[in-house]
């Protein structure tokens, strides 16, 4: 019997040479006349160990990492196909503390299965949620999602059940499900990992959403920067359709759900749900006024559910095990788990799915292992480019939507970017304004003009010119952007800017 070897097809693993390693392993096996079965899985999310090669043994999967092509011959010499000893042997994958300490619900299958195999997906508890959903009434499906306490994982944390309920109760011949896969926040990659590592969980989540609210068409709006995800999603959709899980008569239930992937074109603002819908309609990605809410008048004027990848990918486990099960994880009003993404200057970057409530410090040090450079971590930006910078004194804040709101910060999509002491926060604030200039859709003045003026003022400030005049000017400008912008683009750019100024005034030349 041939041994199964797992080598990720995840694009981050590929960016570190996973394809070359996969080729080298196949070639070496051939040269030695050994038959092996190579599965290109998703990543387990321990990126400092990628490319990580796993071998299926009787005891369980044994991991080796980080593997370079030059290590392949010696791995065969060490009999790695039977879990042999080698300098890169990491032991049983499931026992690696980074993974073992996590609570993986949404990411339960990522790295374990062949991403595009429906058979593998079903063998690992896939499509159990859909099966339940098909036996419930529409209102009961929505009730499970409401009971779970799931809030939008894209960043806004709006209760998913309320959104679904509104669409369910808005009569229309045509309704839509949109998956927002325009994951543009720096420091985030959990959507990408799901789409590349377990796309069927997203497809199942969207199908359940469609059945729940009565929508027959779904779109995944995928950012152009993710070409690998596009390929894998399309293959998974094709396979799910062939297996009868998508199409006109899902599993013989008589229900219909069609799914199509549409690519964005490099506009960050299209991650905002109304700009996204404009883009899907073939227009410039300009933000719409609300109301009307997308749930009442969304894509092409029809009732539309717009949910983030992680929100939708969390639905199958909720429908499988029940809303109560999911709700039992977490703290306060933040229920369930949040897949955190550790990025930037950290030793152990990767994906950590935890119930809400752990502190930022635990995540940075117990999981992240401190900075990659070995210097103290000075600042951490949580929640993407529109999230606040947190100083060391705030590292004990629990990861909870409300606790973060209290310190004028956001959890957003769960991205955590660490900086060591070499960071200049005034430069970062200037960058935030520059990013807003670059990405503003231009519809509202506070964002369009405010960001340009903000960039100019920050340029004065980093050159230490007229600080007595420019610092108050920056604050006043941020106030206008915060209160006058149409969406989070202009409305939240002040978060990184003002948090940098408030917590690190010395970088702005302000005497403390």
């Amino acid at each position, binding site marked *: 019997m041939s041994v199964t070897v797992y080598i990720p097809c995840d*694009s*981050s693993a*590929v*960016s*570190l040479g996973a394809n070359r390693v996969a080729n080298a392993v196949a070639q070496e096996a051939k040269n030695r006349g050994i038959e092996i079965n190579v599965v290109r899985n998703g990543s387990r*999310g321990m*990126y*400092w160990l990628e490319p990580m090669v796993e071998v299926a043994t009787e005891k369980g999967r044994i991991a080796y990492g980080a593997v370079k092509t030059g290590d392949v011959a010696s791995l065969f010499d060490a009999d790695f196909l039977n879990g042999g000893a080698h300098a890169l042997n990491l032991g049983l994958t499931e026992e690696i503390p980074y993974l073992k300490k996590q609570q993986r619900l949404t990411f339960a299958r990522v790295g374990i299965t062949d991403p595009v195999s429906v058979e593998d997906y079903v063998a690992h508890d896939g499509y159990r949620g859909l099966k339940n959903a098909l036996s419930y009434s529409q209102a009961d499906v929505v009730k499970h999602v409401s009971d779970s306490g799931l809030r939008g994982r894209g960043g806004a944390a709006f209760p998913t059940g309320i959104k679904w309920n509104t669409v369910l109760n808005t009569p229309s011949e045509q309704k839509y499900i949109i998956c927002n896969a325009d*994951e*543009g*926040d*720096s*420091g*985030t*990659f959990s*959507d*990408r990992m799901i789409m590349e590592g377990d796309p069927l969980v997203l497809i199942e989540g969207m199908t359940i959403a469609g059945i729940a609210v009565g929508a027959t068409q779904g779109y995944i709006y995928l950012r*152009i*920067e*993710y*070409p*690998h995800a596009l390929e894998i999603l399309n293959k998974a959709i094709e396979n799910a359709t062939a297996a009868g899980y998508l199409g006109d008569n899902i599993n013989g239930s008589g229900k219909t759900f069609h799914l199509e992937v*549409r*690519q*964005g*074109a*490099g*506009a*960050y603002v299209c991650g905002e749900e109304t700009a996204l819908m404009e*883009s*899907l*309609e*073939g*227009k*410039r*990605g300009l933000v719409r006024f609300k109301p009307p809410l997308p749930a009442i008048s969304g894509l*092409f004027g029809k009732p539309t559910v717009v949910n983030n990848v992680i929100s939708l990918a969390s639905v199958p486990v909720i429908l499988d095990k029940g809303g109560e099960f999911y709700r039992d994880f977490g703290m306060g009003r933040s229920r369930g788990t949040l897949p955190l*993404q*550790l*990025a*930037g*200057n950290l030793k152990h*970057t*990767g*994906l950590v799915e935890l119930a809400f409530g752990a502190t930022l410090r635990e995540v940075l040090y117990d999981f992240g292992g401190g900075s*990659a450079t070995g210097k103290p971590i000075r600042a951490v*930006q949580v929640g993407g*480019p529109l999230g606040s910078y947190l100083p060391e004194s705030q590292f004990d804040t629990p990861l909870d939507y409300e606790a973060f709101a209290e310190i004028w910060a956001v959890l957003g999509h769960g*991205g955590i*970017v*660490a*900086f*060591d002491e070499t*960071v200049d926060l005034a430069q*970062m604030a200037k*960058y935030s304004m520059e*990013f807003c200039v*670059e*990405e503003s*859709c231009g519809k509202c003045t506070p964002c369009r003009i405010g960001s340009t003026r903000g960039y100019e003022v920050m340029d004065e400030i980093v050159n230490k010119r007229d600080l007595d005049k420019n610092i108050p000017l920056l604050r006043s400008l941020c106030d206008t952007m915060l209160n006058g912008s149409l969406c989070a683009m202009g409305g939240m750019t002040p978060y990184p800017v003002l948090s940098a100024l408030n917590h690190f005034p010395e970088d702005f030349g302000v005497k403390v």
Partner: protein
Amino acid sequence: MTEQKTMMQTVQTIVADLKDKPGALLPILHAMQNSLGYVPPETVPTIAKELNLSRAEVHGVISFYHYFRDHAPGKKTVRICRAESCLAMGGKDLESHAKKTLGIDYHETTADGKFSLEAVYCLGNCACSPAIQIDNDVYGRVSNTDFDEILKEQSA
């Protein structure tokens, strides 16, 4: 003239294939950029006519999105991530090194037509910063030396 003819044929085939999709304009522009490398301005009137839009509307969409271009790029496009995670890991140095090595700034193409340089705001490779992308290939933890080697490999 033949080149022009092929271009217009390509456009017509693409538009005929895709125009009945709901919200067809972006899929059409993507298909054009995939086959031609850019969206030639002379094709705008055809697209507009077929979709029953004004030329201004089509032009407005092309110019709104960073990804669409109205002129031919180099053979390959190098995208350097400028976002925070990469900045935390020396992205700024890599950016200057790339500009210096290629001898061009963003939105420019090398004299030999091999490479165009573009900025990108996050490749989702933040666990392996700094990151770059050349066409569809993503590279992580890129040092200046790595960059030179990647460039050599991609020039071959």
